[in-house]
């Protein structure tokens, strides 16, 4: 379904706010949700479908980016030398102590200033990757540090090199431990991607906002997208449970 041209450049929530300013319209016209219109939802279903697909693939892409950022940061953070460790720690702390929305706006309004004029979608994926990357880095670091020292020492005693120890001893065990929290982070990322609607990326939440502002039907719009997000949430949660059974572990139990 075509997106009306009037909305493509405005930061929508603030225009939504103005709709809400005339509440008498709602209250007199549709008390107690009694004319909740399933027909309109069905009519807008293609738009919601598109939004859902966009949310899924942009979250997947951002998660891949977050893994890349996280692995690099975790590797830097585990070094003995300060040269790498200090910048990595500073980055992680800075990201964790500021809200994603401010980071998003920082990139959205800041990148053009540096001469990078990117589409909103790219800015959004970049922001999500950079934000989640910091959390992923902490998860990976915790996973590697959860491997008992004895394992490393046994590797050393067996005459393994650093790379061999990493490859055959530490990473396979750390991998198992990190999967459940990583899936937890994926859930957070999918939910965070809703914020991209505020820089007018046409994902799931944006679809709900369009229905709310075009037809003055916020209930239909937002309840529908909430249902779609729950679908994604339970999907990922099921996956987390499955992976837990697959690897035969309760999350983060260190075995000796």
């Amino acid at each position, binding site marked *: 379904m075509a997106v009306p041209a009037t909305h493509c450049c405005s930061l929508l929530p603030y225009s939504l706010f103005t709709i809400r300013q005339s509440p008498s319209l709602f209250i007199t016209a549709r008390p107690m949700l009694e004319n909740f219109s399933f027909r309109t939802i069905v009519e807008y279903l293609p738009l919601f479908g598109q939004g859902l697909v966009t949310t899924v693939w942009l979250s997947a892409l951002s998660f891949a980016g977050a893994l890349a950022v996280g692995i690099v940061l975790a590797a830097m953070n585990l070094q003995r030398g300060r040269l790498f460790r200090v910048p990595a720690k500073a980055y992680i702390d800075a990201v964790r102590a500021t*809200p994603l929305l401010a980071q998003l706006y920082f990139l959205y309004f800041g990148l053009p200033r540096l001469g990078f004029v990117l589409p909103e979608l790219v800015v959004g994926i970049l922001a999500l990757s950079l934000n989640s990357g910091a959390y992923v880095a902490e998860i990976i670091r915790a996973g590697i540090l959860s491997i008992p020292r004895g394992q490393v020492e046994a590797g050393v005693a067996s005459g393994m090199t650093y790379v061999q120890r990493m490859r055959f001893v530490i990473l396979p065990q750390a991998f198992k431990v990190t999967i459940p929290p990583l899936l937890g982070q994926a859930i957070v990322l999918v939910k965070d991607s*809703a914020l991209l609607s505020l820089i007018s990326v046409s994902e799931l*939440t944006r679809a709900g906002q369009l229905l709310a502002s075009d037809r003055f039907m916020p209930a239909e719009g937002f309840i529908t997208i909430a249902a779609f997000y729950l679908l994604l949430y339970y999907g990922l949660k099921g996956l987390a449970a499955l992976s837990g059974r697959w690897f035969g572990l309760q999350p983060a139990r260190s075995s000796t």
Partner: protein
Amino acid sequence: MIWQQLQSLAGSYPLALRGLGMTVVLSLISLVLGTLLGFGLGILRTGGNRLISAAIGAWVDLIRGTPFLVQIFLIFFILPEFGIELDAFTAGIIALTNLAACFICEIVVAGIRSVPTGQVEAALASGLSRWQRMRQVVLPQAMRIVLPPLVGQYVLLIKDSSVVSAIGLTDLTRVGWLVVQRVPNGLLVFFLVGVGYFIVCYPLIMLARRLERRMGAAHGEVQL
């Protein structure tokens, strides 16, 4: 050059202070209410009544499964249809309190479950009432598990309060958004907004880490 840019923003500093004040007030109110409600829900959920704990569990899942932005929109735009008139501030407080309560409920449940059953049985055998068992035996021991993620949750709450700018509350993030419309220097403006949040959040992050280390690293999982 940086100095000139900063000077161009100097006029906005009362607005920025108001924004920071709004962020702090919003977070503080919903933090207190959310903690009380969260502990209440957590205790109810472990109380043994199947129906109540299933209902709380479903609600918590509902809140954990949807983006906070969507929750705010739902509260702000849909409650009025049930005849409940809300201004943006009240809607923001309700949304934040609800979010905090749900996450804190999970933390409290994990804490209460970590207390060995022998402790409860001993308290029962000593003839302590239900309330006394909770107040004097279970909760003090559960706090060891609860405290570090609780502080971490406060950090998340302060950060999530930025999302209420979407319904027009002038918090710190919204101030940045407003200023950037006039002074097109997104880099500096949102850097300063970030500094504002950092000043509030970073001490809490440090506190959470410290508590985690002190309470034994084994239990120090961050709840997201």
